[in-house]
């Protein structure tokens, strides 16, 4: 195998290959690879195929008009990506969100985390040739989407978490059904462990591959499941509790291996905690209003704020500057996929071509989110 220091890009033995942007797994995203036989000597992510200019768009729209388009980059986790935006506007406006609204924010954010992790595991299965996982996880994911649909009215893009609380209350009689889904899903996750995570075929494809050390994870700014799979117990829900999270009892799972297997397994452990949070939230949700009435064009006082939450893929942050007009002066969207993109470049160095799918997908990378 050629190490990077001694390879010459002009030499005939190095072949330049583009993975994507129309690869069925990679999505709207290209990775340029320099291959020496079966080994990757250099990889360079090339995003931007689905860049929509969300940050510029938000400067033309008022704070409420911004809600629907800001959740589009990652529709699997649409509440996760909107949550810090709502927190940022609420902080500038000094809004006190009703308790019931905060509980509903948490319920929807956690359902979205499960839905997003299920998609992650489903596609992971197909990436390593495990077809059972895509059919199981995609099918089971729908039961959670059903609950989210009863609350938010849509199946993927809810525009549910808004400045001032949540858009509407949940329907009556949902609690029983949510408990049933929680019970069933916990049993189901045991089955996932047996058929996928402890499966020798999957272990062979993922264990010890693409190892990210704890030092590198911190140095390169990894976030979310990638960071926690490398032994860093950092979760903004626990470290900087927001909304109703201080009320709930949950753990922050973390693994030390830092390989492709750990990055997948930590997502399963997180779903167990999400179920725990959802159950507590439905059990103890207080009565009362769910939102503040802000009016169609709220005036946000001038100021600057940096709000962040733990979305499904990691730290989701907004840097919002208001100049007192109805529209943001500047809205920087810090998405976890973009923060983790550098890991793709670092971890692909030196792996087999056959290991590219697990190394790439275990980053829980979502190209549309990264491009914004």
């Amino acid at each position, binding site marked *: 195998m050629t190490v990077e220091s001694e390879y010459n890009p002009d030499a005939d033995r190095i072949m330049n290959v583009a993975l994507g942007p129309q690869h069925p797994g990679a999505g709207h995203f290209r990775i340029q690879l320099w291959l020496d036989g079966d080994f990757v000597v250099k990889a360079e992510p090339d995003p*931007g195929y689905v860049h929509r200019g969300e940050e510029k768009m938000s400067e033309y729209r008022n704070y409420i008009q911004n809600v629907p388009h800001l959740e589009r980059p990652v529709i699997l986790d649409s509440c996760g990506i909107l949550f810090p935006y709502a927190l940022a506007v609420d902080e500038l406006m000094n809004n006190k969100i009703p308790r019931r609204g905060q509980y509903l924010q948490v319920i929807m954010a956690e359902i979205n985390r499960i839905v997003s992790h299920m998609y992650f595991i489903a596609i992971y299965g197909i990436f390593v040739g495990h077809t059972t996982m895509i059919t199981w996880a995609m099918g089971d994911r729908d039961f959670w989407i059903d609950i989210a649909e009863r609350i938010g009215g849509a199946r993927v893009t809810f525009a549910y978490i808004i400045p001032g609380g949540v858009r509407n209350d949940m329907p009556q009689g949902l609690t029983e059904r949510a408990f049933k889904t929680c019970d069933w899903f916990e049993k189901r996750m045991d089955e996932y462990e047996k058929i996928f995570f402890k499966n020798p075929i999957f272990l062979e494809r993922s264990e010890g591959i693409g190892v990210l050390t704890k030092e590198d994870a911190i140095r*390169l*700014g990894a976030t979310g499941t990638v960071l926690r799979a490398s032994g860093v117990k950092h979760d903004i829900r626990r470290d900087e509790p927001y909304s109703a999270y201080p009320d709930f009892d949950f753990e922050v799972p973390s693994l030390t291996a830092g390989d492709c297997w750990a990055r997948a397994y930590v997502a399963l452990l997180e779903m167990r905690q999400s179920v725990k949070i959802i159950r507590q939230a439905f059990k103890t949700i207080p009565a009362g209003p769910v939102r503040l009435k802000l009016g169609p064009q709220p005036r946000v006082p001038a100021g*600057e*704020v*940096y709000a962040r939450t733990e979305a499904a893929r990691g730290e989701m942050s907004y*840097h919002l*500057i208001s*100049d007192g007009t109805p529209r943001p002066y*500047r809205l920087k969207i810090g998405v976890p996929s973009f923060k983790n993109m550098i890991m793709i470049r670092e971890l692909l160095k030196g792996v087999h071509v056959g290991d590219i799918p697990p190394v790439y997908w275990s980053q829980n990378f979502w190209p549309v989110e990264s491009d914004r």
Partner: protein
Amino acid sequence: MQAQAQTPPPQPAKTQPLADAIVQKFPGTTIDYVREKRLKVTTTPEKIKEVALFVRDELGFDHISCVSGTDWIAKNEIEVIYFVGSVSKPGQEAIIVALAERSKRDEPSVPTLIDVWPGAEYHERETHEMLGVVFSGHPNLKNLLLPEDWNDIPPLRKDYISPGR
């Protein structure tokens, strides 16, 4: 621009000592705000690397969270802000230090901080293409999200008008 606080904010118990330490070490820096979990420090492009190393090594902010930039067209300045957090120093996981610098809008040039926080590499590249800031010392400032043949001013500048607007 300063936040206009209508009610007194909670006592900034943990961030105030950090702000004091930075000002004591670097008297030229400005503290823009000190909140319960946020601290913004403005320095100059000449000094930012020293301040960044101090913030990373002495104060323990080892994890880059985001890099943002703002076009202050009225003041003819471009602001670059590094948001850094701490994941390994107990007690300050909740705190984000915003390290800002301002450069002239006509020819904005600031030093790169990827040798302080290597994770900032793609963030700086994005700030470069979106606001036209040149990060001197950066290994690769090619367009990342914009097309390679983008033939206009950087799109997040305030004098760039989106098509159809």
